[in-house]
């Protein structure tokens, strides 16, 4: 009685196979077209998701060149029934293979309907997806250009107000999936130096708000996955971009602020009193973050700590900071992508940790291998990889649900937020659950091979 074998409960339905967050752009419809196999690859988990559609084009239709007409019909039908302001066209391997001119199709559809169109080539056979071909072949590598695809919609959106040197833009856009926490440092800037809004991409509620990103004075990317979007916005729309990854180090955040002040021309545009006010508020935030960190570090110093850092974007950076402050890290659990691929903004910390303590590498590798074995049957990626010897997963990390990530964290408030998370036991739940075991182990005489960083 199997009528629809296509769904695993609990898989994040917000992304396509290529990691495109199609729910990120409000009033946008994602239309995937191609054979069933390819279309299902893109949207295999889609159930009851009104933002996504699949147009099945079989090999005969594809060979006869009917694809473009069918897409046009589908777009018109969806546009008639919804309040869509934008469309994302997702090609599959087979249709990409036919060499369709999707740029031209998007332009033509824009002319015909007045809506914004963008496209993403979901082609697993493109050279960049084959091992060893480009830097983009890293776990989750598709995330780079799939995010940019969303922002290409801005090219067809209304122009908005032009930015000039005298009117350098009204807002600050933080490139992240989630809504900004009201406690974010950046909100302190609103009302100063002509800045009217600060928002994350996840804060956009309508397509018009999304289109307003063109009027931003500066864009900030907080993770490497978003950096390419920032670079694109800078290149295409002249919005200065700062790559300031989420940090837990106070000195690093100080440096971020120096870069941000310069990009926003704060010293130039603010009068002396306002500048003092802004800086005082910033100093207060710094002091609060520092104090919270000290308290948490004192708590953690009292015992050996095991951290589950699977949702942390720069885990080694965090480990390094904690170790510097005297925390005895006993064990670290990372997500598989971080294990296999260290992002460049985290790589230096990793290398310093390894140089500082050669045992770290050994233990870290051993730890992750045992994790893989433990998760074996439930985690198809690694078992499959080990079985075939050539299979490398490059889809976006699968999560049980959309976990708000640190990409929305920035500044001193990111440190405070992390400390809050630790205090609430989200990240240190491992510590909680294993406290008794750790205490018992500590009571034993030192064993051979036992280590801490």
């Amino acid at each position, binding site marked *: 009685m199997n009528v*629809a074998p296509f769904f695993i409960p609990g898989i994040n339905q917000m992304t396509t*196979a290529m990691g495109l967050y199609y729910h990120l752009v409000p009033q946008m419809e994602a239309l995937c077209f191609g*054979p069933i196999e390819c279309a299902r690859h893109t949207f295999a988990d889609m159930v009851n998701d009104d933002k996504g559609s699949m147009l099945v084009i079989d090999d005969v239709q594809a060979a006869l060149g009917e694809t473009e007409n069918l897409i046009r019909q589908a777009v018109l039908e969806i546009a008639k029934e919804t309040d869509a302001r934008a469309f994302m066209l997702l090609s599959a391997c087979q249709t990409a293979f036919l060499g369709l001119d999707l740029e031209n199709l998007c332009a033509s559809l824009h002319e015909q309907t007045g809506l914004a169109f963008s496209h993403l080539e979901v082609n697993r056979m493109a050279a960049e997806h084959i091992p060893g071909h480009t830097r983009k072949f890293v776990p989750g590598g598709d995330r780079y250009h799939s995010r940019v695809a969303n922002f290409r919609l801005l090219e067809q959106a209304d122009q908005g107000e032009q930015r000039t040197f005298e009117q350098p833009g009204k807002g600050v856009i933080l490139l992240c999936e989630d809504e900004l926490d009201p406690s974010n440092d950046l909100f302190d800037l609103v009302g100063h130096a002509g800045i009217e809004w600060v928002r994350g991409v996840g804060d956009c509620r309508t397509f018009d708000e999304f289109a307003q990103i063109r009027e931003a004075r500066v864009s900030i990317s907080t993770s490497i996955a978003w950096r390419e979007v920032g670079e694109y916005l800078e290149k295409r729309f002249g919005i200065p971009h700062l790559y300031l990854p989420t940090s837990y180090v106070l000195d690093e955040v100080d440096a971020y602020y120096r870069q941000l002040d310069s990009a926003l021309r704060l010293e130039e545009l603010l009068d002396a009193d306002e500048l003092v006010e802004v800086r005082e508020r910033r100093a207060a935030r710094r002091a609060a973050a520092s104090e919270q960190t000290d308290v948490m570090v004192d708590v953690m110093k009292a015992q050996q700590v095991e951290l589950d850092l699977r949702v942390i974007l720069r885990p080694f950076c965090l480990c390094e900071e904690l170790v510097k402050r005297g925390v005895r890290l006993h064990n670290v659990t990372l997500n598989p992508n971080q294990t296999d691929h260290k992002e460049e903004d985290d790589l230096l910390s990793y290398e310093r940790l390894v140089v500082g303590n050669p045992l770290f590498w050994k233990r870290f590798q051993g730890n992750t291998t045992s994790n893989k074995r433990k998760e074996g049957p439930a985690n198809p990626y690694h078992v499959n990889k*080990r079985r075939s010897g050539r299979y490398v997963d490059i889809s976006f990390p699968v999560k049980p649900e959309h976990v708000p990530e640190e990409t929305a964290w920035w500044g001193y408030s990111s440190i405070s937020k992390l400390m809050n998370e630790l205090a609430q036991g989200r990240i240190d739940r491992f510590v909680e659950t294993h406290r008794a075991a750790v205490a018992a182990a500590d009571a034993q005489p030192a064993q051979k091979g036992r280590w801490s960083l």
Partner: protein
Amino acid sequence: MKNLWRGMAPFATDTSGACTLFYGSNALVLAQDSNGTVSTLRRVIDINAGLCVYATIDLPEISYTLGRERDFIDCMSDLLAGVGVYRLQERLDPIEYLVLVNGPVATLLGMDLAGRAQRLEEEVGKPVLYVDTTGNAYYDKGLAKGYECIYRQVALPALEEDPDAPRIENGVNLLGVNVLDHAGAGMIAKLRTEVRKHDGEVVSNWGYSDYPEKWRCAGRAGKNVVCSVSGLGVARKMERELGIPFETMDKLDWFDDWAEGLELAGSPSVLVVGEQVSSNLLRRLLQRMGAGRVDVATFFTLDKRCRQSGDIKLKAQDELAPLLGSDEYDLVVGDHAFKRYAADNHMTLMHAPVGFGRRDTSELGRDWLTKFARFAAEVTGQRPSSALDARGHRDFSL
């Protein structure tokens, strides 16, 4: 618009269907396509739970376009070697044979799969089967092609090799049992029990849990029992060519004890949306329990000889909403994904009785039917209703 699926994905493809057929044997299934094929498959079944290993040929577009056959053969040989080493390390049985399946790109290019299989067989020295799937049809078509492949490439040659081998008169083939249509172990266990009860023995279940050595004996069985519509084609072929009779499982009285003593109050009319043979079996059981009209609708193959008047072949998603919204049925048995249409039309929808690959392991059985009877009583007002779910209709699943 036909072929436009809004808000839900179309069903698993023939490539996935064919891949699942070799789930229970020491096979290396190689999809001649990008790695999307395995990625899609692992959303349908737990690919690590079976003995079989699935892999795709990760070659760049240029190799496909220029038809660099050598690249493919080398890539597949490397994969086989890699898998061999892994299985040796893990003390698993070695790979016995390879299976090649096609994906959409290979189909568009008109790949000669038979030729490639032959070359690969010469290269690696292991049997290589091939299933010419397209990625453009649903999983039942892939399963049917898979059964055809086993019949043509294993069962028939074995008979030709040993024409004097005696027929196993009490031997029964269970054709069409697969992990997609029969996710739980209950159905296969029941079938095996009933075969033994009728003094028979199961010769082969065609891929569900057996291996090539058993397929080689399949042509000598005395009877075929067809458990899903995908097995019908090969069953008819075996009847025609080898004289082995077949029966579909819904025609047998083997499952009637599940419905014994259960009653559907008020004779509700029921629509079952699902695979045809399993749906027919459910129809038989529901009618024994006192259901009124029971119709079957399917997106998959609707065999003319197995259909009854009122049965419906669904071709597109937009045919589903009017059907589920129709006043003709008191109850609908269908997939979770169809709930949206039922909710819109204030109808009661029940989860399908048999599992959906990895998503649901509930299966047709005595327990399921007991719950169904209780649920039907609520719907027809013979019993007070249980709580409604957030979307305003009663949820039911085992």
